[in-house]
Structures are given as C-alpha cells and as structure tokens.
C-alpha cells in the first residue's frame, strides 16, 4: 500500500485517502444507527398501554417506500457509471431522478409520521414510539441531507463541469446514498417486518 502510494500522483493519493476516510465516517454513522437499533430492540414492547407496531404500521406503505429507495439506489448507480464515462448530461438526468425518488420516499415517510401524530400517537406517547420516531426520523434526516447534497453537487456539476474533483464528490455522494439504502433495509426488516412476526 505504501509502495503503491509512492507511484500514485499527488491527486490520486488524495482521492484514495478521501475515499478511505469517508468509509470510516460511514462506519461511525452506522454505529450511531446501531445504538438507535439497539434502543428500539429494547423498547419496542414498552407501549405504555398505547398501540404496538403491529396495530400502527402499514406493510404496503413500508414496502412502497422500500421499493422507491431501492430504485433510487439503482438510478444513483447508473448516474455514477455515466460520471465515469464523462457524460455530464446523463449525470444530471440520473441524479435528478434519484433526487425525485428520494423526495418521494421522504414524502411517504412524513405522511406516515403525520398520520400517527394526527391519531395522537406522538414521540411522547410511549417508549416504543419515542424509539420508533427517533430511529426512522434519523434515517429521514439523513435522506434530507442527502437530497440537499444532491442538489448542491448537481449545481456545481452544471457550473464547473465534470472535472476529476467533481467525479470524486459524486462518488462520495453515491456511497452515502447506497449506505442509506442499506440502513433502510435494516429498518424495514427490524421495525416493519418484525412487527408482524
């Protein structure tokens, strides 16, 4: 690795470091989610007389969300292939689709939250709901950050074109987006599917 470093150009070595550092960052983020998952696992039965997950959740909705997010990961991947090929137009198109899908996912999530709150099941109702809202909401917050990131990156792609710097940025962005997808798969399993087991 060290020997390889020597042969790499200054720029390539910097790229390699940033990629590696971003992976480490994602692992720290994952550990934060681990805590939230653990807390949910401990508290999901503590409904304090209120409704349980089985009574609240709608599986079709959760499945729709999952499919939307998975598709957005696919479009994000295709966008990255376009970026490597240097096609600015395709990058813009595919990442815009990713953005729209991400926004749709976030909309559905908010719709679910709004319904629960409307029915009087809030963050304060029970330990179960506190942990549910926090776990899913934290994922939602990450999605919103990702959406913001997509918008800003695309704006800079429009302005500066697809230079190596931008391709690196898009690479980080797609890594982040896939990461959110993986976390969601766990949420879908642990929170939604397991409620009906």
């Amino acid at each position: 690795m060290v020997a390889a470093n020597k042969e790499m150009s200054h720029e390539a070595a910097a790229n390699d470091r940033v990629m590696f550092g971003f992976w480490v960052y994602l692992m720290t983020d994952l550990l934060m989610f681990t805590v939230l998952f653990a807390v949910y696992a401990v508290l999901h039965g503590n409904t304090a007389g209120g409704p349980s997950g089985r009574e609240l959740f709608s599986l079709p909705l959760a499945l729709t969300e999952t499919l939307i997010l998975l598709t957005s990961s696919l479009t994000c991947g295709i966008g990255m292939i376009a970026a490597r090929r240097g096609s600015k137009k395709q990058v813009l198109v595919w990442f815009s689709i990713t953005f729209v899908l991400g926004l749709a996912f976030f909309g559905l999530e908010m719709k679910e939250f709004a319904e629960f709150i409307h029915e009087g099941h809030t963050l304060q109702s029970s330990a179960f709901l506190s942990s549910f809202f926090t776990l899913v909401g934290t994922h939602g917050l990450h999605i919103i950050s990702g959406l913001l990131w997509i918008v800003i990156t695309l704006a800079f792609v429009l302005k500066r074109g697809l230079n190596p710097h931008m391709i690196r940025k898009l690479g980080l962005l797609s890594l982040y987006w896939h990461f959110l997808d993986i976390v969601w798969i766990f949420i879908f399993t642990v929170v939604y599917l397991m409620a009906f087991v």
Partner: protein
Amino acid sequence: MKELLIGKLGWESLPHEWFTIGAAVTFIAMGLVVALVITRLKRWKWLWKEWLTSVDPKKIGIMYFIVAGLMLLRGGLDAIMIWVQQALSTGSSQGFLTADHFQQIFTAHGNIMVFFVAMGFVSGLINYIVPLQIGARDLASPFLNTLGFWLYVAGVIMVNMFFLLGGEYAATGWLGVAPLSGREFSPGVGVDYMIWSLQISGIGTTLGAINFIMTILRMRAPGMTLKKMPLFTWGSLCSMIMAVTVFPLLTATLFLLFFDRYFGTHFFTTTAGGDPMMYTNLIWMWGHPEVYILMLPSFGIFSEVVSTFSRKRIASYTSNVVGMIGVSLFALSVWLHHFFTMGAGANVNAFFGLMTMVIAIPTTVLVFTWIATMYRGRIRFTTPMLWFLGFVGLFSVGGMTGVLLAVPPADFQLHNSLFLVAHFHTMVIGGVLFGIFAGIAYWFPKIAGIRLNERIGKYAFWCWLIGFLMAFTPLYVLGIMGATRRLNHYDASTGWRPFFIMALVGGIIIMVGVALQFVQIIASFIQRRQLIDVTGDPWDGPSLEWSTASPPPSYNFTVIPQVASRDAYWEMKQQGLPEHTFEDIHMPKNTASGIYISVFAFLAGFGFVWNIVWLIIASILGIIICVIARTFNEETEYTLTAEEVEKLESARIKRALAAHASKDEGSAGDMGLLEFVQVVIKWALDVVKSKRWRSW
C-alpha cells in the same frame, strides 16, 4: 416575545452566587488582559494568520497543550475544593460548600479532567508527534483537524459558560446517569450545558480520529510498513480506532438524553416504558473504552521513553504491539463491570468480571516488555524516565486494585466507594497523566528547540508522586472502611477525618508539583541560551521525528525519508544520513472554516440550552453553508518550490549556527528554584526601576 428572542434566559440567569460571580469576573478580567496585551503588541493579525487559522498539526498541537494546560488548572481547582470540603465537613461543621454546589463541582471536575485535560493533551501530542514519526508532511485532511480542535475549544467554552450565564452546572456526576439527568430530576440548565459541551467536543474527537486513522494508514513514509511503525504511532492508531468505534455511541446516547429533556421522549425516563438502566449501559459502552483511548497513547509514549533512555530497542516489539491491540479489543467488552450491582444476573456479571480480569494479561505483557527493555540497558535517569518509573509502580497498584474490583462479590462491597475513586485516579493520573508528562518532557526539545530544565522537572515529579500517594492511599483505606464517594459531609464518629486531612495535604503537594511544572517551563525559557538544542536530536532518539530540525519547519521534512527498519533513525545514524536534496512541496492553505463552523456549533448548542429557536435554526444554516463552501473549495493547497525550500533551509541553518555560537557555555547546569526566584525578582525590580512598565 421575550420567549422568542432569548428563550429561557433572563436576569435571574446572570451569576449571583459567590463562586459564579468570582469566576465570571476572573474570566472576563483574564480575557481583557489578554486582549489588551495583544492589542498593545499589535499581534491580532499575526495571531489570526499564524495560529488560529493554521492547519499545521504542530501549531494545533501546541494550541491543544495551552487549552488543556489551562483546563488542568481549572479542574485542579475543583479538586482542591473537593478535598478542602471533605477535610472540613464533619460532625457539626458543614464545610464551606453547599451540597448542591459540591455536586456541581465533582461533576465538572470529572468532565473537565477527562474531556478537556486528558483528551486535550493526548490530542495535542498525537497532532504534534505522529506526522513526524511516520515521516509525513501534513495530515490526510488538515481541515478536519482544525475543525476537531475548534470543536474541542467550543466544548471547553460551553463547559465554563455557566459561570457567565445560568449559574449552575450539572449535579449528576460526570456521566449524567439517568433518570437523575432527566427533565424531572434536573430541571435546570446544568445538564444541558454538560450535554452540549460533551456533544460538541465529542463530535470533534470523532472527526479528529477519522483523520488520524487516514493519516497513519495512508501517509507513512515509503518503506514504513505497519510492523516498522514507532510504538507511539501504534498506540495512537489503536486509540483512534477505538475512538471511532465508541464516540458515535456517546453522540447517539447524548442525543437520546437530549431528546428526553427537550422533546419529552421516554428513552431513559421512569414512566411510559422508558428504561433508565439502558442509559447506564450505553454510556459505559463508551465510557470504559474512553479510559483506554486515553491510556494507549501513554503506553506508546512509555515505550519510546524506555527504549530511548535505556539505549536499547524495545524488548519484543511484537508482544508490545499485540499487547496494545489486545487491550483495545478487550476494552470493548468489559463495560458492565461499572455496574455489577445493577442486577444483570450472576452469569452476566461473571462473564464481564472474567473479561475484566483478562485485560490484566495484555497490560502485564506491556509492563514486562518495558522492564525487559531496561534490563541490561544503559539507563539515563532523565525526567521522562522518572515519570515512567513512577508510572510502573502506580500502574501495578492500580491494576491490582482493578482486578480486585473486577470480582463481582468484592465489587458489591466496594462499588461507589472511595476505593473505586482511588483506583481510577491511580489509573488516570498514574497511567494517563504521567504518560502525558513523560511525553511532554521527552518531546519538549523537539517542540521548542530547547531542553527543559531537568532539575525543576525532577522536583515536580517527586511532588506529584509523593502528593499522589498521600492523597489517594487514604482513599483506598477509607473505601474499605465504608466511605462512599461524593460525600459532602460525614459523621464525626466514623473517625475518617484524619484520612481526609491527609488526602488534602497530598492534594496540596500535587498542586505544588503543578506549579513547579509551570515554573520549569518559564525557567527553561529564561535559560534558553544554555538549554538550546541545535542538533534536533538531544536524546539520541530512535524514530524519525528526531531526524528533522527542532522545532521542525512547517513541511516537517525537506526530503521524505526512506525507511528500511524499525527505529529508523538509529539505523540511519549508523548507516550514514541520506543526502539533502530539495523538491517541490505541496502544503495545505490556512483556513478559518473550522473556526466558523465551531462558532456556529457553539451557538446552536447555546440555543438548545436556553431554548432559543431562531438561534438554533440560524446556527445550523450557518454550519451547512460553511460546510458547503469548504467542500466545494478546490484551491486548498499551495506549492513551495524547491528553491523556496532551499532558501528557508539555509536561513534556518544560519539561525541555528548563530544560536549555537552564542550558546552560553559558562554557567553549566540547570537553574535551581532559588535561582529562578532571584531571576524573577530581579526582572521585576528592573521593570519597576527602569519604568519600563509605563511603555506598556
């Protein structure tokens, strides 16, 4: 309207007790004096450009030392107040502190010493030394490093903020254990200050740790494989890997506690299905490894010190590294020993008790590698070596009491007693702090270009060691006699008072030691002509940091060294040093983004403490904008051409030669204490007589 503008703030949140007023006045006065001096000397621009916005890890390291040194005094003052209170407050006397105030003091003492003193010094040493040891010119991400430092500073300010606004700190103990730290039992802002201070500095630590992992794993000099890395770098790597593993847990846990307090959720409450015991688990999953995060760099420092001053390679490098890795791994699976009494059941307790005892094995391996290194070595009893010897003794005692506490039945007796307090102070002072002091004494010539005054350094060491033994041995005894920790008053019939008085005397001796350390640094600067080191290698050191100038140039090395073996510089000195050539060097540009983001982070935290919604929103927007501006800034580097480097180098050599020529050989030996006092008095008289003070 008022609620909207300033949240819960009001007249009543201004300081109105003697200690908050006193501290507020002191802080403001100190700030004014510093500002006045800088204005007088016209150094604002210099300060901003050369230091505050610098991304040079060496400068950031020094800034860490300064802040951590100040916090050592602040935390030490808390310690003295605790000791005095406990020596006074028996029988009919209630001492000089109220119960509530006493609780705030030991909480602040714990938070400050762990987060801002120990972490600060450790980060400072890692910043300064690791890049030099691995032959790198800068860090993988210089920006993350300044950001980490400034978030740490924001945490420092937040932890002291209650003096100016709020008038109370958390009274919950340093971990803020639930449900005591919940809204119901701690309605004031004290716990919020604690949460945000730890949260902000903790995020800084995570970012800094990511950066150092990148740096150590990706930027070592060519030829330096992992198995040829200096041991301090190994210790730092283990420590940083642990930091990225557990600091996210702290961040998440503190967020949950904050949700409980701010949004009324039920994670750790006693109602609606909350589980306070989960908080204890989560916080100790971070809290126990945290001790080792502090300890591992110290282990590395001791390895360097022992090897250098025994003039021998470390005995069994591999065992040492495996020992450190073993400590890191086991440290992640022992957290439950902090609460055997919580009732997890016999089997769970037995598992964690055994795991805790197992940790003694890798640590013992480490101790034996150091002792074996000394065996038949040519030992020089310098100050760093003294710190090491003091450490070995204390660490063994601390380790043995630790094994004792790891036995669950014994722990049921000793839990939350002063025995425990004595145990962890033995580890944190004897292990971490002595390691830090050894490191500072060892690397000071590299950092400042002058050696430290050895004589006063040795006085300081003996004060620390004797003071420590006097202060904490009685606590072991008291613990066995049944004294619980955090007592602000005890019955006269217990007969504990003589022990508490002895502890106070010990504490005062430690304070003398601290004062002597500051005197030592000042005396060394007064004596700089005799103590100057132009070789860059005053101890005949083994690793690469000694191969460059002291203090090193901003680019560390003119030529990146080629490493062929462990103890690379010893090897080079025997094989002949490489030729000096010059090449273009890429250097990171200074940036103020880290400062701006930290200011916004501080303001957001402040907004959360006081419920000021507009401030929170504005600050978070500010952070986002700063991050975007920084991320999409593509011009973060500049190039020093080979000619410029050559010019800088020849200027430096000229300066070094001039300094060497003027080196005052006449008065050999280090300045003693008496001499120091004489010099200071003479200087003060000079100033008064010549009326130089008027020009200030």
